[in-house]
């Protein structure tokens, strides 16, 4: 029988710790082919070129007395100034994300080291506060079992 997956099978791990209140994650992998078309060719030809991966995740921002996963990610990107110089602050941190599809004890995932490229929070009437973070994968994934 075929197994299909939905949001209830999704899980996100941040540096090995399961993130809470994740509403979505996504990733996209692409490759830029290198054209090898030469004079007198009638159709374009290509060879494999550079690959890249990007992705995003959306998490609810909540308070359970300690930190929350949305805050964890936001703090990896945003750093406060360390002294009187407004132009100087710590660098953003790379982090390891695992985007998982879980069914019982079966876990399929993609593990990657990422650089957070954006984080945005939206507060609006009638909506739960959430954070949207986007990331750029550094190099090839560490693991892939999807």
């Amino acid at each position, binding site marked *: 029988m075929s197994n299909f997956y939905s949001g209830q099978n999704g899980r996100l791990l941040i540096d090995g710790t399961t993130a809470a209140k994740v509403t979505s994650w996504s990733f996209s992998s692409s490759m830029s082919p*290198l*054209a*090898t*078309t*030469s*004079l*007198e060719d009638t159709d374009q030809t290509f*060879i494999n070129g550079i690959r890249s991966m990007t992705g995003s995740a959306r998490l609810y921002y909540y308070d359970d007395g300690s930190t929350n996963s949305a805050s964890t990610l936001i703090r990896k990107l945003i750093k406060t100034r360390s002294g009187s110089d407004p132009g100087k602050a710590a660098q953003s941190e790379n982090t390891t994300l695992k985007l998982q599809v879980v069914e019982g004890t079966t876990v399929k995932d993609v593990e990657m080291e990422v650089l957070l490229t954006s984080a945005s929070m939206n507060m609006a009437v009638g909506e739960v506060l959430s954070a949207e973070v986007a990331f750029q994968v550094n190099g090839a994934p560490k693991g892939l079992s999807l």
Partner: protein
Amino acid sequence: MTYPTTTPTSRSFSYGNYPVKTSQMMDGFETRILLGSKRTGVEMQLQYNNIADDLAKNFLDHFESQKGTYLTFDLPAGATTGMSSSLAGAIPGVSDTQWRWAEPPAVTSVYPGVSSVSVKLVAVLV
């Protein structure tokens, strides 16, 4: 060593000109003196994009074998691939002509094992 037979990705050439000495006279008239009977200064620029490093090295080896811009050589038919024979015959279109490197080949690495090479040749009377 002969010039590599790799088919170029793109090609452009300058048709050259006859050696003409032009002088502006004090009365405003222009005087031109034809100094030769053959067109000179024909240049060809060839671009080889995304080729294997081994093929790219062939251009370096050829440049080396020609002592850089010193020696002359015949241009292979591959350099005019894609042109009609009449247009190809117009390059350089001058008898007793060979080619030499106008400048060293420029190699750009674009991917592991893959490079692009820019070549500039000039036709010379021999």
